[in-house]
């Protein structure tokens, strides 16, 4: 039985055991409901780090920032609700403010959360939660299955947040729910034209940093403003940017030296200062520099430009990361959240009849192969477990560091047929069995090999 089924049946069983306690029943119902929903991803970070910007970029539409928790859910038509206290939610209107969508919270300025249903492709398999910067780790993670943590350079405060997010026995055995994001990648590179690649390198360094590694699954860099621009670039803006890029490079550079110079007079083109100001606010000085440079390099249609921006801003990488670590691991993350919820329940309302369930929970936490795989991924990536170089990459791939589909695990980049997959799988299985039985290998290597063997064995029934 797979992990999610086991945990699901435990939830049902717990509902039976606690049927006389209304509080426990409500708690379990909400979690059973949540179990079937898409993965909830909280976006957290210090103030002004660009949480709302990243959420906007992922949703693909611009919303004005709010001071409370804002949930973005997939929906067939735009709707918004506000939840305050225990009462029923109130429907809100979604208006526009400038070029942004604005949810009129009006008198509900002390809202628990605002839920926005929005028709967007990204929101089909995730729920995004934009969190206020003063929220504690408990508040942020209470309702979320996964966490996107935004930061600039990793500072002690950020590590503290991530550590407290992992500060629970179950959370620790299954530290599988965090992706760190170096937001504001453009500023990391001081606005230079190569800032983004430099930020990418720094993200790569943090991925190997022993202080950061165990706390998150991945580190990616994102230039938030550019990412939003990529998704929401408008006709008129594109036109204005094209005009700008028609200027001589030297001349334009002079006026792009500082934000003040760009909006100030004299300007060599007849362009309203208000338009320039708007461009600056939307894309930042770095965005204007990069986009004009790109247009000059030949990405001169909006489609071409958008593609470039998605790739360069790091939005693509962030999406991939979300897919690999969160969406594809939905079952594991949901199971993890449900197990945390069960653990909370057992501690708050312990009763003799739940003893079997408590033992079950402990056993599942200790033995679930999915967690073991993820722990192995973390151990291999952090260098806690070292395998010979040629085996390391394969092990990571097989246990699902690059995706959990059989083809991804077996390293096929094209659509392989079942026979090919089966052969590759058997091949891998034999090789890793030998590795697991190698008496000369250190203990942790053999342990890792055993996990890989178990993964291969688990895949085998699909092909026979």
């Amino acid at each position, binding site marked *: 039985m797979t992990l999610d089924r086991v945990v699901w049946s435990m939830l049902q069983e717990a509902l039976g055991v606690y049927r006389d306690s209304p509080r426990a029943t409500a708690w379990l119902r909400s979690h059973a409901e949540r179990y079937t929903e898409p993965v909830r991803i909280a976006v957290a970070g210090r103030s*002004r780090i660009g949480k709302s910007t990243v959420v906007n970029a992922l949703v693909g539409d611009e919303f004005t920032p709010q001071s409370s928790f804002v949930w973005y859910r997939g929906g067939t038509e735009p709707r918004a609700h506000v939840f305050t206290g225990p009462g029923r939610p109130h429907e809100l209107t979604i208006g526009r403010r400038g070029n942004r969508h604005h949810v009129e919270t009006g008198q509900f300025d002390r809202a628990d959360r605002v839920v926005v249903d929005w028709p967007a492709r990204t929101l089909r398999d995730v729920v995004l939660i934009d969190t206020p910067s003063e929220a504690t780790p408990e508040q942020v993670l209470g309702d979320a299955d996964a966490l996107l943590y935004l930061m600039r350079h990793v*500072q*002690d405060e950020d*590590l503290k947040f991530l550590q407290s997010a992992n500060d629970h026995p179950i959370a620790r055995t299954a530290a599988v729910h965090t992706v760190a994001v170096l937001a504001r990648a453009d500023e990391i590179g*001081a606005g230079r034209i190569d800032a983004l690649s430099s930020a990418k390198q720094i993200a790569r*360094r943090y991925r190997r940093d022993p202080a950061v590694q165990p706390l998150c699954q991945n580190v990616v860099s994102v230039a938030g403003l550019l990412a939003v621009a990529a998704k929401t670039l408008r006709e008129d803006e594109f036109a204005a940017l094209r005009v700008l890029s028609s200027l001589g490079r030297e001349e334009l550079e002079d006026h792009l030296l500082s934000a003040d110079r760009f909006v100030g007079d004299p300007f060599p083109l007849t362009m309203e200062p208000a338009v320039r100001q708007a461009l600056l*606010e939307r894309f930042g*000085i770095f965005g204007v520099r990069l986009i004009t440079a790109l247009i000059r390099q030949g990405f001169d249609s909006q489609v071409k430009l958008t593609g470039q921006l998605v790739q360069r801003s790091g939005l693509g990488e962030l999406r991939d990361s979300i897919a690999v670590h969160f969406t594809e691991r939905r079952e594991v993350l949901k199971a993890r959240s449900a197990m945390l919820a069960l653990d909370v329940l057992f501690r708050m309302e312990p009763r003799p009849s739940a003893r079997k369930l408590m033992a079950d929970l402990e056993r599942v936490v200790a033995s679930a192969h999915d967690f073991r795989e993820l722990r192995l991924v973390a151990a291999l990536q952090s260098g806690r477990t070292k395998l010979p170089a040629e085996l390391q990459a394969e092990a990571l791939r097989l246990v699902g560091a690059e995706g959990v589909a059989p083809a991804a695990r077996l390293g096929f980049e094209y659509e392989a047929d079942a026979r090919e997959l089966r052969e590759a799988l058997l091949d891998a299985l034999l090789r890793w069995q030998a590795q697991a039985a190698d008496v000369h290998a250190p203990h942790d290597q053999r342990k890792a090999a055993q996990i890989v063997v178990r993964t291969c064995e688990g895949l085998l029934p699909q092909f026979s």
Partner: protein
Amino acid sequence: MAPPWLDVLDETIGACVTHRRPDLEARLREKRAQQLDPKLRVLVVGESKQGKSQLVNALLNAPVCAVGDDITTTVPTFVQHADTPSAALVRNASAGGSIFHTPTERIAVPIDQVTKQAAAQHVVRAEIGIPRALLDSGLVLIDTPGVGDTRSAHTASTFATLMQADAVLLVSDATGELTSAEMTLLKKVMEACPNVTVVVTKIDLVPSWRSVVERNRALLARAGIRAKLIPVSSALRLRAAKSGDQRLNAESGFPELVTCVQSDIVASADLLARRAVAVVASSAITQLVTPLREELTAHDSSHTVATISTLQEAQRRVDELRRRSARWQNVLNDEMADLISDVEYDLRDRTRKILREVDKTYDEADPAIGWDKFEQWLEDNLNEAATTNFAWLMERAEWVAAKVARNFPVYREDLIPGSVLPDDLLEPASKLEKPKIEPFSVPQKLFTGLRGSYGGVLMFGLVTSLAGMPLINVISLGAGALFGGKSILDESDQRLKRRQAAAKAAAQRHVDDFFMKFSKDVRDSGRHIQRSLRNHFSTLAEELQETLLESARSAKRAVQDDQTDRERRMREGRKELDRLVTLYKRVQALGGPAMELTA
């Protein structure tokens, strides 16, 4: 002429010495040496990636400090004036030593290699010298590693450098207002060095930098920090330097910063020194005053209370001892009386048993036969009774001693006396007198036989003479013999009875004697024991009482002494406190105008 702050500082150092605070003294001496040094150290601090190194570069118009997108500066870099550009790394000569107080060595390196090589281990700092007018007056710019980075060693070295700073430029970029971590850092910096200027960098990147600066001003005002706030753009400045564009230079905000550095920091070196000294000295004095003040207030109450409670305790213990010595005396008397009567009873019982045995024996036996053996037996028995009885006495006496000891107010090793035995015990009782035993000799027997037979012969001879027989005939002779025999038998029986009675009486007497004598002995030794126990315990009690009284007396003395001594000390303390307060005021006066200057 020595500047006025030097006097104050020296006086403060003196106060630290008097108050035995070598730690404060060392800190102040370090500050003193540093203030006397003509160099002016300006520390550039801030969180990582705020543009600290770039700021130094832009100030000097030279790429002296390496800049990069990732964490670049790993050791403090000292930039100072030199006629020709030069660079050196300073590292701990002894590998693995602490950052402080270890011999260091300088290694000259080419300027462009500094950053690369600074990443090596044990490098404590980098020193760069370049010819610049700004640095001419002895200004040293110190670029530091970012605070709050995950590698705490960097932060530590920054704080170590902070102690030597004359002025501080706190760098925060314009992409956001000052964070709470930066405010904490700022406050921490202000404690060590009050001359702080906040520099907001990267204003070229941020369209809304003016509002960020405004918010920062508000933040500083709210926190009550009076520090100048200068927005700059290093990128514009470096660009301007390249192109020689004065307008761009003005836009970069650096002229203001340079003026600030020159006028506020270089020109007012004395003022800075006064302010720095004021801060360090007042913090030191505060630390001296606090315990002194505490002592002064706590003196009356806590110390005296302790002395008085000692006195009360001592008196309480004396009373307790008295109360309990009555108790142990009672116990001793009661127990000894019990003991003596018990022992006597036991002795009587034993002797009675012996006597019964004697009676039983002499109901049957003839004392004439085996008297010696009997005598021996009696002696043995009496001796055994005496020994057992006496052993029991001793046992009981020890038990009594233990019981008394238990009732004694305190426990001591020598509480139970080693021996309570009287020496002259068990004098041998008088010898058993042999009873008078009359032997039944043959003539006596003959005489008695004759006397008995006389009646028989006569009686039967008269009867038979009636029958015509002579008076002396066979019958009368036979009867005579019979009568004679009976008389002898009767006589000897009576004699035996007499002898037995005599023997019994002798034994009785002897045993009585023995009992008299021995019970007296036992009683004597009982009393002896009682006396010696009493002596022993009362000696102990006296000793104890004396000790307690002495401690009570000394406590009393202490209370009295305390009174005078405390008054003396209070006077001294007050004087000292006054002195320190005056000194503090002078120190404050040093910093006073300077504080207003920053506003």
